């Protein structure tokens, strides 16, 4: 069996599972973000009284944090009330950050667990060797009542990534390159395991960025075998005992792809699809109105650091806005302590409080018709960040920072100083 299958089998109380089988799994943790007051409504409509386990459910206020409208303030108010009334042990209000960042930081993610969240980017937690998948609001209400959910045991695709990146080329470029080659529906209903020398050696932040965007290939879940950096990260945050599942040598993958990234160029996904990804050399150097570094994909300390490497002591283009939203308060505090925030403010950046920001087009820096945004986030669909007539280019935080500096799409390799 594959490690993913062993996780599902354990959660289903079975010795083994096979591809295509439907299994009912016990859920280790369930997270609901602030887009989904519907979860509470569905829970009530189904006659729910008490949640199945108040230690295993948390609300995270990230998509609307802080509330931009009266309606969203009301959503927060009702969700806060429910959390309090049910006595939920963990609650992450507007002062915390994006769910996929705050959960690992709070020690709620570990190898071998089954995690569901009302967010498609729950694949992120494959970085830790967890089974994480996104579900809808009403389905989440059934989990809140029963603590279980059925899954179809998925086919598993292996994407092997070998090599070392050049300075100025980042994990985001790796996943955009893979998406550009394999396309947005390669893994619909399937799981992806990322392996290879790059994955084995790389740090937690890079692993999270890659697993995060597995959902853009349609994947149900992503998986990476945890490495020493993962074990260190987890041991600093929880003393939870966990099991590390090993994939059996005779396991047969549904599909297998191999990439070498030694000579990879920075990648750009041009409007309006995530898989429209090309090496930066092949992309028109259009003028950029807004550059954005943030979200569950590109708002970690390492991402902000890449921007500092390029922008320290410089000023961004006067026709470009650079928006930076740390993925969490922990990230924000570290960035302040290290002097990153001051360096970027001096360069002309605008900071907003931790959360999803304009990534999904609700607030904090939307786009007007005809505007161009280059962003370290995950989706460039029409209307994703505001007007349907705006254009969104997906890129690494380094490319975003370089583009903010020059005022048009710019290859960061020519600007990286190497160290801060």
């Amino acid at each position, binding site marked *: 069996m594959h490690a993913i299958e062993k996780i599902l089998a354990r959660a289903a109380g079975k010795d083994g599972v096979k591809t295509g089988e*439907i299994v009912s799994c016990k859920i280790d943790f369930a997270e609901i973000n602030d887009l989904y007051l519907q979860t509470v409504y569905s829970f009530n409509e189904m*006659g729910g009284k008490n949640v199945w386990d108040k230690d295993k459910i948390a609300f995270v206020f990230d998509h609307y944090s802080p509330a931009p409208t009266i309606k969203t303030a009301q*959503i927060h108010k009702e969700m806060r009330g429910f959390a309090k009334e049910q006595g939920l042990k963990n609650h992450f209000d507007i002062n915390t950050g994006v769910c996929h960042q705050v959960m690992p930081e709070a020690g709620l993610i570990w190898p071998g667990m089954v995690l569901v969240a009302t967010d498609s980017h729950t694949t992120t937690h494959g970085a830790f060797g967890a089974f994480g998948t996104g579900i809808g609001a*009403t389905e989440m209400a059934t989990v809140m009542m029963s603590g279980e959910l059925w899954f179809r045991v998925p086919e598993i695709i292996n994407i092997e990534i070998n090599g070392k990146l050049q300075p100025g080329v980042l994990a985001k470029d790796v996943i955009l390159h893979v998406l550009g080659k394999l396309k947005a*529906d390669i893994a619909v209903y399937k799981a992806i395991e990322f392996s290879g020398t790059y994955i084995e050696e790389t740090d937690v932040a890079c692993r999270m960025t890659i697993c995060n965007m597995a959902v853009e290939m349609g994947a149900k879940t992503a998986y990476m075998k945890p490495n020493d950096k993962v074990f260190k990260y987890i041991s600093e945050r929880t003393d939870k005992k966990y099991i590390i599942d090993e994939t059996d040598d005779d396991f047969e993958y549904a599909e297998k792809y191999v990439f070498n990234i030694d000579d990879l160029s920075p990648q750009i996904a041009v409007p309006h699809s995530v898989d429209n990804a090309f090496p930066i050399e092949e992309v028109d150097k259009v003028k950029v109105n807004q550059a954005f570094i943030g979200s569950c994909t590109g708002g970690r300390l390492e991402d902000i650091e890449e921007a500092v490497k390029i922008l320290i002591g410089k000023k961004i283009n006067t026709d470009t806005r650079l928006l930076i939203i740390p993925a969490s308060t922990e990230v924000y505090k570290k960035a302040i302590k290290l002097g990153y925030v001051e360096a970027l403010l001096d360069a002309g950046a605008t900071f907003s409080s931790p959360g999803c920001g304009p990534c*999904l087009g609700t607030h904090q820096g939307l786009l007007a018709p005809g505007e161009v945004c280059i962003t370290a986030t995950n989706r460039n669909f029409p209307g994703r960040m505001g007007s349907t007539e705006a254009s969104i280019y997906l890129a690494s935080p380094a490319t975003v920072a370089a583009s903010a500096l020059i005022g048009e799409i710019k290859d960061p390799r020519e600007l990286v100083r190497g160290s801060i």
Partner: protein
Amino acid sequence: MNKVLKGKAFVFGNNIDTDQIYPGRYLELVKPDEIAKHCLEGADPEFASKAAKGDVVVSGTNFGCGSSREHAVITLLNAGVSVILADSFARIFYRNSINLALPLMVCKGISKKVSNGDCLEVNLEEGIIINKSTGEKIQGEKISEYAMEIIKSGGIKPLFRKKFGDK
């Protein structure tokens, strides 16, 4: 639920994501009739005003990709869409649709066999689509028994109310 659904086809392309089905800027809305007003706005701003009760959405591959937002199903349901036929569906959308009892069927090649405005007859239990405008009979993939049971019950809510309600 009617065994045979009839309606006019609205045909869309591949990778119709949930931001096109229901743009993020309307996620704060909670009333179904308000949510319905923005149905498929990102793909066709006129859709909500053109669509009538019973209409059929036909699409290419990976319909409903992107965000997990349940609003994408709520808007289609309340705009009057009776069934969605696509070459393939994104996983979370598929589950949300079954859970809220909006029928949907995988039918490879459907987006090439149907034109905008064609009149379709869809037999869910048999997995058969008849294009009344061209006379073509198209075989789709039957919905699994498990999912069909949820749809027939009117969605996961009535099922759960019976099983777990008041606990």
